[in-house]
């Protein structure tokens, strides 16, 4: 076990040194490896060390056991395994001796590549975790290995260049000596300079022992025996409970009409007024939820008053028809010229209703604020953010270092947990009741009604072809609220079309909106891929051949197309009553998806039988886990495409729970979802959001082949399918 060192001991035995790059590194004591992180400001490291007795990417015990720290949120995407694997690969660690824990939430020390070059960020969003941490983890692992090699070199008095490492051992081939990493712990000596390790000084990918292998996910055993801890599972002595009533009209201000009645309820301790909600604190969870149901509230009007989501599309069509550009996203060539010289122009509108995240763990947090209101301990499942303290310092008026965030497993994120609204609410309530710890729970009804949805939008697409049916121009106008939330994914980087234009025309309804898995790619790839098949259908072309032509300048995209064609036996006839459809998506990684569907013409129900995906994601760290991401992405895509819909009537959200917001269930799954990877040694690309946007286009295109009719409004609910069939 680790030596039982006191904190004082540890601090006294620490040392700092400069790397060749002039970056400060913190060096630990016996039993603790150097903190293999870089931070430009050594004051920040020292501050961090005051709080956390040991902070490091890795801790090593004399028996060889080690802990590697994961800086990313774990929401099922596998960061708890994939990032430590990258580290352990370069460290030459014996994976069977590795345990994984979350790192402290300190971006200066544990951040990956930020949005801007040279910045650091802890933010598990945009499917960027593996991509943004790949080099960070490799370098840190290589530095850990270097310290161990350096120690062995000093111990044996041999040049470090003569040493190698494998499976948690350092080897000196010349003399046949061998020493384990654990045995080196009491001998640890620090190099005067720690190399920065550039890409070419790291392991050759052909020598990888862990990366690319199917290593079981570290946290799965805890997730099958009930011990994996989510924030909602946290229990603390004397803990009280909080809940908020936020209404169904986003932005409305509440006036509480029965304060004394509520305060008289058993266990109710406080009523806390928010701008947009009434907060309650009670001694039990049942007590707080019962009292919440009794609230009598007069709600003000809001921006969204009078807004009817299902009637807005006619206004959107009018906006689309205006001869006035919105915010231009992309402009290549001259679309106007393409329209003027077109042999034929195709125009179509695509629509999508709001969808909700529906992570199965409703939002919640546990916070304990100290009696003097100066510090806070926080337990939360968060996708983190630019502010790793999640807005709490602002609530308390204290510096960020006074807030300690204990990241817990996330019971689903999908973008919703990249918001901090629920954490801030919990901090406000916990401050009221300090020093008692408080657990804030959103009911499912709260989570649905006060959701932050993927925006509704309308997209008007125009495509031009020449006399040979070749695409000459492609224009994409997005109308909707939310900027990049609706405009993302309109670019066609892998399609060679000489004239391209894409723009966003803004609307505003006061409905809360947020990134939802794949964001704008979901609706936009649906529109793009559908229009391509509309053209192919009209030109009597194979939709695959049409895409082959478009992908001529993008061999990577073409390789995914050809692989998917082969996997799905595209050219073989489908079983009677079934048809296949294709869609291509780029979202970090790139991939082609092909599905096979059938249709119940009486009920309007679409059945998806198979999905085949060919993916180029660069280097694959965890193949089986990437397949799991493809499977999950397709299922979530099917759920949203076939079933999910939030509707607004006079500003009021109409859905409240899973009885009226339906998710895909077990009996609706396809028989198989198969994934193949295009071999690559390039830097890993994100895989969490590439599959989901394939679904709508692939299904709509299969439907077109099956029926000759167009599905152009998401979701494809049976009533809509029947309307299209009979239309």
């Amino acid at each position, binding site marked *: 076990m680790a030596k039982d060192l006191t904190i004082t001991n540890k601090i006294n035995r620490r040392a700092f040194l400069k790397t060749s790059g002039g970056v400060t590194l913190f060096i630990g004591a016996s039993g603790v490896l150097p903190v293999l992180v870089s931070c430009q400001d050594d004051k920040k490291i020292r501050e961090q060390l005051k709080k956390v007795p040991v902070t490091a990417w890795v801790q090593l015990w004399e028996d060889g056991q080690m802990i590697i720290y994961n800086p990313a949120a774990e*929401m*099922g*995407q*596998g960061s708890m395994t994939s990032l430590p694997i990258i580290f352990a690969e370069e460290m030459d660690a014996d994976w069977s001796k590795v345990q994984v824990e979350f790192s402290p939430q300190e971006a200066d020390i544990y951040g990956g590549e930020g949005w801007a070059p040279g910045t650091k960020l802890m933010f598990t969003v945009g499917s960027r975790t593996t991509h943004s941490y790949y080099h960070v983890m490799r370098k840190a692992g290589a530095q850990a290995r270097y310290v161990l090699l350096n120690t062995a070199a000093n111990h044996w008095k041999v040049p470090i260049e003569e040493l190698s490492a494998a499976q948690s051992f350092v080897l000196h081939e010349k003399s046949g000596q061998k020493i384990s990493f654990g045995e080196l712990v009491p001998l640890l000596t620090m190099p005067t300079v720690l190399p920065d390790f550039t890409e070419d000084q790291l392991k050759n990918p052909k020598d990888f022992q862990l990366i690319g292998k199917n290593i*079981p*996910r570290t*946290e*799965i*055993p*805890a*997730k*099958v*025996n*009930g*011990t*994996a*801890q*989510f924030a*909602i*599972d946290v*229990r603390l002595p004397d803990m009280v409970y909080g809940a908020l009533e936020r209404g169904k009209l986003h932005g409305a201000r509440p006036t509480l009409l029965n304060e004394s009645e509520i305060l008289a309820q058993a266990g109710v301790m406080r009523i806390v007024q928010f701008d947009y909600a009434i907060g309650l604190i009670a001694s*039990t*969870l*049942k*007590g707080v939820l019962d009292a919440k149901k009794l609230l009598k509230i007069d709600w003000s009007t809001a921006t969204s008053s009078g807004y009817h989501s299902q009637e807005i599309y006619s206004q959107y069509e009018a906006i689309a028809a205006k001869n006035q550009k919105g915010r231009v996203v992309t402009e290549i060539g001259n679309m106007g010229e393409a329209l003027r010289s077109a042999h034929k122009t195709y125009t179509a509108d695509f629509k999508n209703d709001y969808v909700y995240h*529906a*992570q*199965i*763990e*409703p939002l919640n947090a546990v916070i304990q604020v100290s009696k003097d209101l100066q510090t806070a301990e926080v337990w939360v499942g968060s996708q983190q953010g630019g502010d790793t303290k999640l807005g709490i310092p602002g609530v308390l008026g204290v510096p960020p270092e006074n807030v300690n965030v204990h990241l817990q*497993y996330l*019971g*689903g*994120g*999908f973008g919703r947990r990249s918001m901090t609204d629920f954490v801030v609410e919990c901090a406000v309530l916990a401050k009221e009741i300090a020093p008692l710890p408080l657990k804030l*729970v959103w*009911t*499912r009804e709260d989570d649905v009604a006060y959701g932050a949805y993927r925006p509704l939008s309308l997209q008007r697409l125009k495509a031009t072809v020449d006399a040979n049916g070749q695409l000459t121009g492609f224009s994409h106008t997005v109308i909707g609220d939310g900027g990049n939330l609706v405009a993302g994914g309109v670019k066609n980087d892998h399609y060679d079309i000489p004239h391209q234009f894409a723009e966003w025309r803004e609307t505003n309804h006061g409905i809360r909106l947020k990134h939802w898995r794949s964001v704008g790619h979901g609706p936009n790839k649906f529109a793009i891929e559908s229009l391509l098949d509309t053209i192919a259908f009209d030109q009597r072309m194979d939709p695959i051949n049409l895409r082959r032509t478009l992908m001529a300048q993008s061999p990577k995209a073409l390789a995914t197309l050809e692989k998917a064609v082969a996997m799905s036996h595209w050219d073989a006839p489908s079983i009677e009553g079934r048809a296949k459809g294709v869609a291509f998506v780029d979202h970090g990684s790139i991939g082609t998806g092909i599905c096979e569907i059938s249709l119940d013409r009486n009920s309007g129900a679409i059945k998806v039988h198979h999905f085949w995906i060919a993916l180029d994601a660069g280097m694959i760290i965890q193949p*089986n*886990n990437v397949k*799991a991401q493809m*499977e*999950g*992405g*397709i*299922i*979530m895509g099917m*759920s949203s495409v076939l079933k999910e819909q939030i509707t607004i009537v006079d500003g009021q959200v109409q859905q409240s*729970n*899973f*009885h009226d917001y339906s*998710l*895909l*269930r*077990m*009996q609706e*799954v*396809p028989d*198989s*979802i198969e994934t193949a990877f295009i071999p690559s040694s390039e830097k890993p690309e994100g895989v969490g959001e590439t599959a989901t946007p394939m679904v709508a286009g692939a299904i709509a295109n299969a439907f077109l082949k099956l029926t000759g009719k167009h599905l152009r409004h998401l979701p494809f609910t049976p009533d809509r399918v029947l309307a299209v069939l009979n239309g």
Partner: protein
Amino acid sequence: MPKYTLNINKTSYDVEVAAGTSLLWVLREDLGLTGAKYGCGIGQCGACTVHVDKQPIKACLLPIEQFTAGQEITTIEGLSEHGDHPVQKAWIEAQAPQCGYCHSGQIMQAVALLEQKEHPTRDEIKAHMNGNLCRCGTYLRILTAIEMAAKTKNPTS
């Protein structure tokens, strides 16, 4: 507040909670058995599935006063001593969970099926599991895991 005695995972628990408190809140907030999860509170998602006398039930729907000390309640924590029930082992083998939040409920629901039927068909498994939602979309791996568990638990001769 009234007192209740419950037999959970072969242990007797005395709890003092308001009448009408759901079994789920008692398990999670009073007894610290947090494996069963809250997902919807209306029996639509199955994240709270536990066994009462080997039958799967939704713990969010049933108030505490409906249970007697004579009933045997089993939660994921009591399913096996070392997390090695054949269904749990199959779950790991299939690498079934993603976020994992719904999987205690999925596993309890699956175990109940295999108690009743040694070799369910794929359609029977789907029908039995249809009340358990998974937002991460792990359904196909759950199917695989249940089929694997059926094979190891009840090998055919």
